[in-house]
């Protein structure tokens, strides 16, 4: 009877001929051309910003501003990256952010203070993600359709809750987190959350069975199924994860804007998808990186910042955004095909 091949101790298994290169070189090699090219784009942007507006751009306050402004969409993008990696899509992220931010800022919720707002935002996000996941994984709906339906109904519900009015937050402990001099461990709270979500996202994707299953489902769902992976359950979890990220993002947005409004999260779905794509995530699934997606977010936020500092108008900004998406994808295709 065949025994499972037990993992031998690595010390006895070192083979000189095929020894792995040192770890740092592996990291460099795996931080592939895509990521490096994104870093290059970001560096170029920083040079442009530094030349055009040296005083305003190269300022720690501005760095703080860029990171803070990018943190809301950044958290959403981390969740979106997982979903796209699995071959799916979540068009409802913006609507979920809107619904969660609105639900968490009603007068009734605000009575429960900080915890009430945080809990409600996260719960609404997870709840919407659960519905998405159930419809897609067990209802057999196409992700595009299911999340499109969620987009419509979550926006509708958000409007119903607010009646179109802006719900101002009056809880000081929440508002204080968005103040100019609020720091946790020397980092603005929003940026800290963004960083923590990014790191956890990276760890989950690269170091856990959950991440592996995500990649397997996205790379080849049939092969994953025949390899014994519970593809449907994995899909459910992925949309839950995306919903959770939306809930967290909604809380960040409440801190940032000091209010909840049904128009929040406008077109987040497109921004998050765009950031993931220029970050090298394959829209068909199976490949992508958290680092790439986050760099995508930072590139977009930096562009917005530079344009605003230079007083360029939104028409120019939109054209530039489109051009950057095309350029980034073309550069990646080129670099990818030569390696």
């Amino acid at each position, binding site marked *: 009877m065949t025994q499972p091949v037990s993992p031998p101790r690595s010390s006895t298994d070192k083979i000189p001929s095929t020894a792995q290169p040192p770890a740092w070189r592996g990291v460099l090699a795996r931080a592939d051309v895509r990521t490096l090219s994104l870093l290059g784009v970001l560096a170029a942007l920083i040079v442009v910003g530094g030349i055009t507006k040296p005083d305003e751009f190269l300022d720690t306050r501005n760095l703080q501003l860029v990171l803070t402004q990018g943190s809301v969409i950044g958290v959403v993008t981390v969740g979106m990256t997982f979903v796209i990696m699995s071959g799916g899509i979540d068009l409802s992220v913006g609507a979920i952010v809107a619904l969660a931010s609105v639900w968490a800022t009603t007068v009734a919720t605000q009575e429960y203070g900080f915890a009430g707002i945080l809990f409600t935002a996260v719960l609404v996000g997870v709840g919407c993600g659960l519905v998405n996941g159930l419809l897609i994984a067990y209802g057999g709906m196409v992700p595009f359709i299911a999340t499109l339906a969620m987009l419509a109904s979550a926006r509708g519900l958000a409007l119903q809750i607010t009646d179109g009015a802006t719900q101002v937050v009056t809880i000081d402990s929440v508002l204080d987190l968005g103040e100019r001099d609020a720091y946790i461990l020397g980092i603005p709270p929003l940026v800290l959350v963004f960083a923590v979500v990014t790191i956890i996202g990276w760890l989950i994707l690269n170091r856990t069975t959950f991440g592996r299953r995500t990649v397997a489902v996205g790379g080849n769902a049939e092969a994953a199924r025949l390899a014994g992976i519970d593809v449907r359950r994995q899909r459910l979890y992925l949309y839950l994860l995306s919903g959770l990220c939306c809930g967290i993002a909604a809380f960040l947005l409440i801190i940032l804007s000091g209010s909840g*409004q049904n128009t929040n999260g406008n077109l987040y779905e497109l921004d998050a998808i765009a950031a993931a794509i220029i970050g090298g995530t394959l829209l068909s699934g199976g490949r992508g990186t958290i680092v790439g997606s986050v760099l995508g977010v930072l590139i977009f936020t930096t562009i917005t910042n530079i344009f605003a500092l230079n007083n360029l108008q939104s028409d120019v900004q939109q054209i530039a955004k489109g051009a950057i998406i095309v350029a980034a994808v073309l550069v990646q295709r080129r670099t990818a095909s030569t390696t």
Partner: protein
Amino acid sequence: MPESTPFTSRRGLFFGTAAVGAGVMLSGCTSNKSDDEPASNDQPAAADTPGKAVTIGFAGPQADHGWLNAINDNAKSRAKKYSDVTLEITEGSNDTAAQIGQIETLINKKVDVLVILPADGKALTQVGLKAMRAGIPVVNLDRIFNTPQAYRCWIGGDNYGMGLNAGHYIGEQLKDVDDAKVIELAGLDNLELTKQRTQGFDDALKNYPNIKKVARQAAEFTVESGQAKMAQLLQAQSDFDALWNHDDDQGVGALRAIEQAGRDDFLMVGGAGALSAFQAIKQDNGVLKATVLYPPTMAASAIDLARALGQAKGVSGLAEFEIPSSLTLYSAVVDKTNIDQYMPTGFK
């Protein structure tokens, strides 16, 4: 600039009276209510004795924004005041096709008068024409149809005037400041009304050679975008004297950004007339000193006009027998001096 000629005459007209304008041009005096209903001038525009029963169809866009919500509320509560008016209000829609369908349903129901706030004025011109041809007079509210043939009467706000009045208010406030700097937080750039507001603002500032507009960014009428764009503007401009923000809703976000940046070295003028803005002006402990109206009470006036049309009456206070074909509302500036008068009209 074609605007330059009318501009000087306009200036002559309202100069010095900018802060005292009435909410609705055709109403003379004002009276305030203290209950929850959206307040406006309670004096009915036409004769207030009950007359022939009139069914008014009302079709507007989706009320996903405070101002639009206030439009619906104004229309409803105004109609309720008249025992002879029945209001058929459709579910709001931002989809042109859906709104056309709703209006056609109202035409088929043979309502007496239609009040239409189109999601897109140009795209709904045809259905306005259709109603007129079917013998149903149309009161076109705010977003104007392509051709006057599509409405019997247009009533709406003055976007150019909004910018103009905001510019003049800021100009007067900064009259004595040398090399004053002004920035502008505009609304959604895709909309023509944003361009008109900016144009009016720029034209007004031309009268004040000591003032220079140093920056302009467009937000999206949302709190979120207001905060984001304002934060960038504040980073870009370390020193300026005044800010005009097109919209009080996005102003909530803008004020948040201002607070976050710890800035209070300038004066801010808002737009539209939200309750939160009025309250801030009254408290007078922040940068927001005034706001320029774009009054949602126009919906109440539209109901008045529709009722008058249905009963074939004129407008009291005017010599003519007929209702005017066009009514442009005045964009009054509300500041500390007249805030109490306007407080009840503020929308959430």
